[in-house]
């Protein structure tokens, strides 16, 4: 009897024949791709081609109508519920709680993810964010940095990054790319962006048609 483990790559994310539509609009049609540890799968394409929908499917936030998603972390297959909690996810459509400070937000998420508050403080320092400013009072660039901290808080093996450099200034880009580089020493990432973007570790490229 299999316990869901095998001798394949330590971390792996693959998807095959994914389809997803909203009403009559078919956004994803037979989309396939994969990435293993140390690799970045870059997904590009014009606005509305389904990049964000693809990442939401991979994160377990949207159910694909057809196709399979195979996610392995530490050589263990994850079902949708486990995948949702294991992955790191960054999206322009995701906000944290505006009433809480940056530190309180990460402390709260850390409690849910069983990560100590020192990890949140470390990420805030590395991303140049104040600890005590309410999230609602952050600029758009700072909110993007906070999204990075949210995605990386639990040291996920798989990162899903939707337009990860949006609104970031040059120092912000440098900081987040350094964090991505560190992540790729053991983990993998899927990066979605309208155009090709200069991120480290890009081994595969998937272009979605508009």
């Amino acid at each position, binding site marked *: 009897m299999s316990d869901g483990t095998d001798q394949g790559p330590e971390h792996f994310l693959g998807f095959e024949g994914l389809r997803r539509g909203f009403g009559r609009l078919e956004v994803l049609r037979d989309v396939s791709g994969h990435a293993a540890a140390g690799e970045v799968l870059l997904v590009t394409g014009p606005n509305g081609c389904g990049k964000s929908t693809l990442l939401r499917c991979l*994160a*377990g*936030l*949207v*159910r694909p109508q057809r196709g399979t998603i195979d996610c392995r972390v530490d050589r263990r297959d994850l079902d*949708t*519920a486990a995948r*949702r*909690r294991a*992955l790191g*996810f960054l*999206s322009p*459509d*995701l*906000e*944290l*709680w*505006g*009433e*809480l400070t940056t530190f*309180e937000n990460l402390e*709260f*998420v850390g*409690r*849910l*993810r*069983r990560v100590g508050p020192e990890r949140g403080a470390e990420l805030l320092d590395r991303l140049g964010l104040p600890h005590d400013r309410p999230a609602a009072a952050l600029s758009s660039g700072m909110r993007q940095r906070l999204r990075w901290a*949210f995605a990386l808080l639990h040291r996920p093996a798989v990162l899903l990054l939707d337009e990860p450099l949006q609104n970031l200034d040059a120092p912000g880009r440098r900081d987040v790319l350094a964090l991505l580089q560190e992540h790729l020493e053991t983990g993998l990432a899927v990066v979605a962006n309208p155009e090709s973007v200069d991120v480290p570790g890009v081994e595969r490229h998937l272009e979605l048609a508009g």
Partner: protein
Amino acid sequence: MSWLAEAWAIFAKEWRCELRTRYALNTVGLFAFTTLVTVSLTVGPVGSSEEMRPILPTLLWLVLLFAASAGLPRTFVHEEETKSADALRLAADPSALFCGKVLYNLSLIVLLEILVVPLFLGMLGLEVASPVDLLLAMAAGGAGLAVGSTLIAAIVGQARARGPLFAVLAFPVLLPLLKLAIDASLGAVLGEPAQMAIMLSFLYDSMLMVAGLMLFPAIWNP
């Protein structure tokens, strides 16, 4: 233990956010105060009237229901509107999230009852024959209101037309609970046996909680 810590973290986060915005506290408090004053000015101190006494527990529960309805449906809607719901979907265990939210709504209702019940009894001059039974009726009714409202709020949060949906969904879920809570409160006020209604109320609360724990993951996640 870690599951409990998660539920507690959600409860603590809800209160931390609430104490900074005071949205639910202000809405529920003002609504309760307005309806209480309206009822007391219209009906007057009729608590000693044998004809009016049986009606008053119904009025009390109507005040509680309408005040709670002003604040509790916001539980998940606020997070959907501010786009923080996905952060919860990704980070929280659904059953711990549900229990944390129920606990928060329960604490709001307990506060509401602490505010409303003594004022209602005082303003209407209503004497209670069995205060212990009334306390149990309030606990059972309040718990059901908290669990039912949380579950319905989760459904409403997913819908596009949110406006009338809470009232439509709450009617069949909360009607049996209200009937039992009113019967139990009436028994407590008149000094008649209320134990059966109280027991059935707690039973209904348990059924709602089990149904909530089973349904919530499917409602909350795609």
